[in-house]
């Protein structure tokens, strides 16, 4: 691990200002992903800004009848919150399907959104990777790609976003609140937070230098039957091959977002219009622009069948 200095600012705006002053600074919250990457020197910040203790760790009701989740709320706390369990069950379920108990006790809401891909070539510093080292090439395209992306990918990168939580938040129409170094704030729909890789896969979000996520807001409860179904190689403590987050209403209409297939939670408006016609029609719209490799083409029928099972569960 490279040496770094450390500070613990007193306010979110102060944290953002500190980050804008030093181009090699990083925020650290739970640390469960960043420290892992620092040990491998995939991340090598010279300065860490500890954002724990900024008072961003509460879950408050909003005037619109939703919930405002502080950026520092731990994954365990969020999954166990009675309001989330009752009104946003898909979010509790997604959180509980991810990582381990130990990691969920530390991992935060904003950190979960900003975690890096688990593409094995991103982690292997002996291999080219356009995300880790821009312009070096993509080892995954011709390599072992079974776990990797099938849609929204590019010739430069086929990595997936590994979060379960983000997939549920996407289907719940969450928005992200931020503060910038000049103390201005903005709201970003979750669907706009992550960029698709194109020819610059190292740029993963629309956040600017020093911009700090302060909260994630959920709109008022969507009702319906909320389901998160994750398919993985082990029954527990494994990243998704694919996952389906769905909110299905009594009349068969609904929303669906897919995890494990793309560089961001994958949600397609046209697919939701097709939902009442069944999983085949919806999956076909979800993957209209899919470009799977021969190793991960199985993800397309796997999503269709999992979605079919989810819709059957919602009807029962």
């Amino acid at each position, binding site marked *: *691990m*490279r*040496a*770094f*200095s*450390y*500070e*613990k*600012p007193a306010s979110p705006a102060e944290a953002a200002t*500190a980050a804008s*002053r*030093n181009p*090699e*600074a990083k925020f*650290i919250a739970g*640390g*469960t992903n960043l*420290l*892992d990457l*620092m*040990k*491998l*020197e995939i991340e*090598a910040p*010279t*300065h*860490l800004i*500890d954002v*724990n203790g900024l008072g961003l760790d509460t879950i408050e009701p909003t005037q619109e009848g939703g919930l405002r989740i502080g950026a520092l709320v731990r994954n*365990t706390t969020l*999954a*166990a919150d*009675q309001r989330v*369990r*009752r009104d946003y*069950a898909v979010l*509790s*379920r997604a959180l*509980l*399907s991810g*990582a*381990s*108990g*130990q*990691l969920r*006790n*530390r991992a935060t809401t904003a950190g979960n959104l900003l975690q890096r891909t688990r593409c094995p070539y991103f982690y292997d510093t002996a291999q080219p990777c356009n995300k880790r080292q821009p312009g070096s090439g993509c080892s995954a395209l011709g390599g072992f790609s079974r776990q990797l992306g099938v849609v929204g990918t590019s010739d430069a990168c086929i990595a997936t976003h590994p979060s379960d939580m983000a997939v549920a938040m996407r289907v719940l129409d969450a928005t992200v609140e931020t503060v910038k170094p000049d103390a201005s704030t903005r709201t970003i729909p979750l669907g706009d937070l992550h960029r698709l890789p194109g020819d610059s896969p190292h740029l993963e979000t629309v956040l600017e230098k020093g911009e700090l996520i302060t909260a994630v807001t959920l709109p008022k409860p969507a009702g319906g039957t909320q389901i998160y179904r994750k398919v993985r190689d082990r*029954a*527990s*403590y494994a990243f998704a091959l694919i996952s389906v987050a769905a909110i299905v209403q009594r009349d068969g209409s609904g929303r669906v977002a897919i995890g494990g297939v793309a560089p961001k939670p994958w949600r397609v408006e046209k697919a939701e219009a097709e939902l009442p016609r069944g999983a085949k029609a919806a999956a076909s719209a979800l993957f209209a622009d899919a470009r799977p490799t021969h190793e991960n083409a199985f993800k397309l029928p796997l999503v269709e069948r999992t979605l079919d099972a989810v819709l059957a569960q919602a009807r029962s």
Partner: protein
Amino acid sequence: MVAAGACAALPAMPGAARAQPVSRGEPVTASVSMSVNGENRTLQLDTRTTLLDALREHLHLTGTKKGCDHGQCGACTVIVDGQRINSCLTLAIMNQGVQVTTIEGLGTVDDLHPMQEAFVKHDGFQCGYCTPGQICSSVAVLDEIKAGIPSHVTADLTAPMAVSEAEIRERLSGNICRCGAYSNIVAAVSDVAGRQG
């Protein structure tokens, strides 16, 4: 990365909370105070020192084990302010003022914690390397169920929690045992849960 924690002789940062950008490669030390197994400890540490390395290399509490050092195996599990965490994935400096309980703080050879006793009784280990992490994790798992925190296998998110074999297996999935003592570990944890009622 294994060099972290070897720099106690370097000048300390004036106040751990002060901004002090450094040039690449120049180590920085800071003062860290925490309660470990009920005893207040203050250390001068390289900022890179993880809580795990602070416990093992600086406080010589070697009960907590380093397995993967990447949060994948759970051997480094300790209890911080009542919650189990991977001590390899948190910096010591991020843990100012916390209360840490390690395996040494749970029980001693002459006065075993009920969970340690149950692991012995049910033969919940073979080589023993993952055992301190398994036991710290197990103690915290029973507290989490008591506190009503749900898990992936909890059927009804709004109903009261209950201990079951499925719950124990799911909740302990972050603790790997390469000897494969899992069935005896589940028996030990179930035994303690049953006695706690």
